[in-house]
């Protein structure tokens, strides 16, 4: 149905860059989530594509048609973009019944070559030469019936929104959005007002809906779990800048930088600061309060060349011509190191030999043969899995294991870092340098 392309899209209010030079291609039939902390520019991006917000500069095309181009002075208004938008607060019209809410937009369609099949599917013949016409009452009725069946709200057609529960209102909003047959469906945190159980249910329904409608879905959320489970691709944004645009598992396994690594995954990734002492194809590191480790990258790593390339890219982005200086400056992500007692002071400017190791909790394994000594700080079994926090010196590591295991707090244990998916980030620029294995020397 529709491919969306954003080229150098920027939105700023004075010196505040809500979205900064965003390039993004959303493939036809994709389910893309825009993910990021609140205030990062994801909703602005969505509203710009839908036409509810006007970009400062850039170009946006939907289905090959340019809907916005600051250079050419094109700005197709939202109502002519034929898109659907699902609002966070549903935005149902309180003065209309469920039926009227869904049918209201349909009564307004006036197109050439439009027809409605027996089961309520809208058929558009773009090449038709007939005079544009409106839909008949019967046709509208068939469409409303079809979409209300999809979201299972037929019993409530005569009720007013205030007489429905949150979940039912959400379904009505979905039906209303689906009714005119939009090419693209935009959703702005549509599940954030629902309770946890309902959210899970609606999540799976949205996934089914994506399959059955075949539309392109663009979905804004700050909930990384929602993004991981729903999306075909995740677009991570921070401070108005695109951080990573990849498939969910890629984002999880190969995060571009510490921000992405930290934002995606629950429980969060373990960050361990390390200092390089020697390098010979593998990197020798001092970490965890003076213990020595060797990091062996999966692919050969030339750190000098890697730094040069990273610096070049960073400089290129920073030196880009801007009409107004960016007030919300881009800084490397300030990751949190979990400690038993907070330490203050001592923040020397990191150099090229300063690294951060990122290890997902599932790769921190408690085993009697472990090479690192630790002590149980807390243990939280949920039945299906157990999250354990382990104290190593003043540092805390998080480990997740399958099944319910109980540990007495304070118990001495040993642990290993397993697998070849240990991530090595530069402390200087926060970027991922390599993935590999980590072993104690």
């Amino acid at each position, binding site marked *: 149905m529709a491919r969306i392309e954003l080229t150098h899209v920027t939105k700023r209010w004075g010196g505040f860059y809500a979205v900064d030079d965003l390039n993004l291609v959303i493939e036809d039939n994709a389910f893309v989530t825009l993910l990021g902390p609140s205030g990062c520019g994801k909703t602005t991006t969505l509203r710009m594509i839908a036409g509810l917000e006007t970009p400062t500069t850039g170009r946006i095309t939907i289905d090959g048609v340019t809907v916005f181009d600051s250079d050419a002075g094109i700005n197709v*208004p939202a*109502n002519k973009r*034929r898109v659907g938008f699902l609002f966070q607060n549903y935005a149902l019209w309180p003065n209309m019944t469920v039926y009227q809410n869904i049918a209201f937009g349909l009564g307004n369609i006036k197109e050439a070559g439009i027809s409605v099949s027996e089961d309520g599917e809208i058929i558009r013949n773009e090449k038709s030469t007939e005079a544009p016409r409106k839909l008949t009452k019967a046709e509208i009725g068939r469409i409303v019936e079809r979409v209300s069946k999809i979201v299972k709200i037929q019993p409530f057609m005569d009720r007013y929104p205030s007489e429905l529960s949150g979940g039912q209102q959400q379904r009505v909003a979905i039906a209303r959005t689906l009714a005119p047959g939009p090419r693209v469906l935009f959703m702005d945190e549509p599940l954030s007002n629902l309770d946890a159980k309902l959210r899970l249910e609606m999540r799976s329904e949205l996934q089914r809906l994506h399959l059955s409608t075949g539309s392109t879905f663009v979905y804004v959320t700050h909930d990384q779990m929602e993004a991981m489970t729903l999306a075909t691709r995740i677009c991570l944004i921070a401070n108005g800048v695109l951080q990573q645009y990849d498939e969910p598992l890629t984002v999880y396994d190969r995060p571009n930088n510490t921000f992405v690594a930290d934002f995606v995954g629950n429980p969060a990734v373990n960050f361990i600061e390390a200092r390089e002492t020697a390098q010979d194809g593998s990197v020798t590191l001092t970490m965890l309060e003076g213990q020595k480790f060797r990091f062996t990258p999966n692919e050969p790593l030339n750190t000098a060349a890697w730094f040069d390339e990273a610096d070049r890219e960073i400089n290129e982005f920073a030196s880009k011509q801007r009409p107004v200086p960016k007030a919300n400056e881009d800084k490397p992500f300030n990751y949190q190191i979990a400690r038993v007692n907070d330490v203050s002071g001592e923040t020397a400017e990191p150099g090229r030999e300063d690294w951060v190791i990122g290890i997902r909790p599932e790769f921190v394994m408690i085993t009697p043969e472990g090479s690192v000594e630790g002590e149980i700080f807390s243990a939280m079994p949920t039945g299906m899995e157990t999250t354990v926090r382990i104290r190593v010196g003043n540092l805390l590591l998080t480990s997740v294991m399958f099944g319910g295991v109980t540990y007495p707090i304070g118990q001495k244990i040993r642990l290993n870092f397993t697998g070849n998916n240990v991530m090595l980030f530069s402390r200087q620029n926060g970027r991922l340098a390599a993935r590999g294995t980590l072993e104690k020397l």
Partner: protein
Amino acid sequence: MDAAIRYSPWKARFNRVRTWLSKPQNTILLILGIILTLTTILPMVTIVKDTVTVHPGTKDARNIEDGQTLTTFNWTDMFAPKTSTAKKLADKNLWTPLLNSVLLSVFACIGAIFYGGIFAYLVTRTNLKLKKYLSAVFIFPYIMPQWTLAVIWKNLFDSNAVTGGADGLLASVFGIRMPLWWCTGLFPCAVVLAMHYASFAYILIGGIFRNMDANLEEAATILNTPRWKTFLRVTMPLVKPAILSTILLVFSSAMGSYPIPHYLKLSTLSTKYIELKVDRAGQASILAVIMMLFGFLILIINQKTTSGRKNFTTVTGKSGQSSVVDLRAGKHILAVLFAITTAFTGILPIILFAVETFLPNPGDYSFITGGISGNMTAKWWVTSENITENGMYGQKGMLYNETIWRAFGNMLLVALLCALCAGIIGTLVGYCVSKNRRSKFASYVNNMAFLPYLMPSLAVGVAFFIFGSRLGIYNTVLLLVLTGTIKYIPFASRSALNSMMQLSGEIEEAAIIQDIPWWKRMTRIIIPIQKSSIISGFLLPFMTALRELTLFMLLCSQTKIITTLLDYFDEMGLYAFSSGINLMLIIVILVLNALVNKLTGASIDSGIGGE
């Protein structure tokens, strides 16, 4: 992807303007901005110009050389008089009225705030008895024509011995003669204005009390704060914004009020204006300019305080039951006390006006002492031919008097058109401003729409009198409607803005996305949702216009509309007629208010001041 996007400031600006104008709310805002600027600023400029224009046949024309058309005579004669007689005149025509106006406004403010504020507190925060009845009757004076209480005051306290003219009720029945300071001048004016605007204070302050989060007071109680301290340190600061806006509104309304000082014989800027208008037109305009300056001053103060006011809006939360103070025995005593005072301000006027129309002669209350049948008459109502005896001055009785009914019809027409225009424009202003919350231009338009509200009525009337005379539309319904519309837009724009602000933008965006045209979005979604506040935006101008005298009296001949006709009969001494018209107006307004309230749930108390 590779095509570079260049940033061209001119193109960006052009695109921005085009995008801005493509939204209906912006185009409407622009048009409204231009219209409101013209209709608000132009008349004001006209008054200022009038102060330096030579008026043939008046004082200034006698003090210039031939052929001169502009003169500073009016200003110098008032502010820098050369002779001692001129100095005395300046005192009489400028400084005394100015002082009286300011004093009157200040006292009216204080009185209204105390009387209305205390009542608001008692009704919303204590277990006072008879709350429902008292609350309804308390706002009667605001619904009734402004001069009602002044006339009642005269009818009660005047006496032939002290004030001359006919004896009032107290003098004729009980033989009590009140001293002169009680009957005319500053004291009765201030009391009557305070009573009139106390209802206003009650509505504004009561609104805050009602919505105030009781938890805030409870939190103080939990911390073992004494009750009086809670009231002074927690409650009072929270209602301060409401008190402030009441002060501003009462001050400007009192300053421009004509009928009350006119009836109770106090020389204020507004009464002096009417006096000077014929022989010293230019100097009269100076008085109007001074009143306008007060209006601007109030707008500036209002502007300064509203930024602080926003800090309090979070207060109106969804707290549950507010705590109620137990007045113990006081709940009965105070209820009786207020029942008596509201009877005087709300019920008595209706009865007195009704009785007045059956008295054989003004002030002849002999029926009370001498039996009903003999000393009452229906002639004021039913006389159907021109007779000059009987004290009718050649007028037909009220039921058959075409002049009255024509004036009544004109008044209804004017009020209806004013309400329609002001309601529509005000609703649009509210809508457009709420859609452009951060825009400077939007707040300019909002201020332009609000300015006439803070301008003393008489100053607005003067401005449109001069403006209208220049355009040659004096004494037309058009001029009356134009003036009324401009003056009453704030009623509608305030209540529309407040309710539109609470409407999430998504509601309309959901319709935009579905390609629903603007017209349909307004009529099918926004207006139905905001029905009740929009109706009160129409209702308030209607009821206010229906009883308006000060604003309209300069703009038409005396027999044109019912309120000026009432004034005319009053001057003639046909008190039975003026009382009858008063009675009709009060009843029409009360019935309409009750009717609209029943039908739509909108009421005057929910809309005034936009809280």
